[in-house]
């Protein structure tokens, strides 16, 4: 049996709302049998996204500070909590159909973690899982976050991997003092400048291996900078 094809695309910097809309379009197309599996790789401009249950009070920064730092606030209507995305953070949105052979959300999340652990290893960082938590961790600090949505076994959302993220932005949402303890980035861990696009290519390759997909497109597609 030949592996399913999955097209990876590097989209450059995409506003959050636009990324969301693109995902919704691709999910719809795939569920109607008209689309194909895709891996969207991109970064967002500074944005704090609020899950449905998150109250604005969970954003620690005041309105003024948030705006002063140029961070948008975006309520997503999904479950879950407050997250931050921004430049230097590789965001991956795999739009995959897990049916018929991978209908297991826990396995899918583990697979994504595996992809990210292998990606980190490509850059000399040994990351791991933390019992009871999602995401990928290095020494108790979160390197990559995972947040997945599944509708009829078609996946959306995905992962956010801190490549050269300015970690101080997490202070806007995480209780003070714990922030520096809680998150880390590839650049901080390696002490070297890492290109987000290079990490994206590595992640796409491992995605193919771990999820059993034949990946295409990542090298070929032209960078699409500043979509907005």
């Amino acid at each position, binding site marked *: 049996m030949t592996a399913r094809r999955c097209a990876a695309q590097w989209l450059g910097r995409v506003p959050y709302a636009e990324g969301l809309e693109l995902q919704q379009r691709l999910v719809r197309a795939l569920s109607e049998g008209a689309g194909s599996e895709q891996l969207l790789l991109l970064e967002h401009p500074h944005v704090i996204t609020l899950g*449905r*249950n998150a*109250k604005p*009070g*969970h954003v620690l920064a005041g309105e003024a500070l948030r705006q002063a730092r140029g961070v948008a606030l975006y309520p997503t209507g*999904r*479950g*879950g*909590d*407050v997250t931050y995305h921004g430049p230097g953070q590789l965001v991956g949105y795999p739009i995959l159909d897990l049916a018929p052979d991978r*209908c*297991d*959300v*826990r*396995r*899918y*999340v583990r697979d994504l973690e595996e992809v990210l652990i292998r990606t980190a290893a490509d850059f000399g960082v040994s990351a791991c899982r933390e019992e*009871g*938590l*999602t995401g990928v961790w290095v020494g108790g600090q979160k390197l990559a976050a995972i*947040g*997945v*949505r*599944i*509708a*009829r076994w078609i996946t959306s*959302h995905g992962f956010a991997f801190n490549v050269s993220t300015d970690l101080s932005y997490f202070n806007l949402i*995480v*209780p003070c*003092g*714990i922030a*520096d*303890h*809680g998150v880390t980035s590839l650049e901080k861990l390696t002490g070297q400048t890492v290109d987000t696009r290079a990490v994206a290519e590595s992640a796409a390759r491992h995605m193919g291996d771990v999820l059993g997909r034949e990946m295409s497109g990542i090298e070929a597609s032209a960078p699409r900078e500043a979509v907005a």
Partner: protein
Amino acid sequence: MAVDVIMPQMGESIAEGTVTKWLKKIGDAVKRDEPLFEISTDKVDAEIPAPAAGVLAEILVPEGKTVEINTVVARIAAEGTAVASAPAASGASKPAAAPAAAPSPARTAAPARAAGPAPAPSGPAPAAPAAVSGGTLSREDLRRTRSSPVVRKIAAEHGVDIAAIQGTGISGRVTRRDIEAYVGGGRGAAAVAAQAPAVAAAAAAGSVTAAPAKPASSPAPLVFKPGEAVTVVPMTAIRKKIADHMVASKRTSAHVHTYFEIDLSGVAGLRDRHKKAFEASEGIKLTYLPFIAKAAIEAMRKFPIINSTVDGDNIVYKKEVNLGIAVALDWGLIVPVIKKADEKNLIGLARAIADLGERARTKKLVPDDVTGGTFTITNPGGFGGIVGTPIINQPQVAILGVGVVEKRPVVIDDMIAIRTMCTMVLGFDHRTIDGADADRYMALVKDLLQKANFSELGG
């Protein structure tokens, strides 16, 4: 003919899921495979399609509630069977009136009474505006007059006051059959009789969390008067849980509280000396709480009854201290538990407290984080309160309340001194703990804190 909607198993070894959002309301028509509700399972959000077409007749699991897989969360009735008026839609009314009529009778009954917080009453049913005129009608009147457009049309045609008719529908609503029987003098009386048990059965089946819809003849007593300026907000799942838990504890334990004034000047000094270095090395703030937790645990070694529970006529002494720390959240209160807290040193406790607090606030606690507690510390001083009278977290037998830490004038050797003071309270269960033991325990906690001999800090 109703189709059960179940909590699906979204993966091997996944045992439960949480309903996060109902995408349809009771009474809504649903198509097969149309998104019906959203769940969160194993930290993944998933959208679940309807297993069959029909009308969403019952929601058995409200938003926010976690249930085991294969639990029936809702029922979909074949179109028409949910509502008495639907199948009989005569030539006089358009066929389209039938589904449109369905929402209104079902809506007051199930969401408000059975499903709790589930579908927030999101605006009146499309049919209802005529009947809803602010809060001026009594609840009973609303039930009676909030009937389907078909019923109101018939009533208008015959000049009948709907409120005068004995309704057999949900919550005493007047169904099409009722009004036809009333108007036509007996026409449809048999149908009324046949209808009643079906309604009762449907209502009983819906009673997972609360009482089933009661007939209109025994309405719940009104806690506010019709027309009173109020806003009604259904309790969230966590609110209901807290409410039940608190009342159950007051019913179970013979609560007694003992208060101790404790001089934390020594601890404050230690904290000041190590604060900076600690924050630099651990990445977290050094608060008073780890010191207090350490002292509370130490003192239990001498008074193990504090870390016990009651099992019928037996007292069960717990060998491990699983320390619960009450965390106030914007949306409620949660008590994450530090497992085997007695094996941790001060720094370990500080780390665990910071970790659990952060995960509570960011909703990253897993079920295991909030179960198995054997003793709890709560912080009624968080907003400046001198101290409080905490309710025991069942099935534990004691809870330590920590008041505000502040400088107060105290008398030492007949002189007035300024010391960093804290009032602490032990709430204990007098069924098994006598006052003398509780006081001796607290005296030891006080002594440990005042000596402030926490060697790990080199203090």
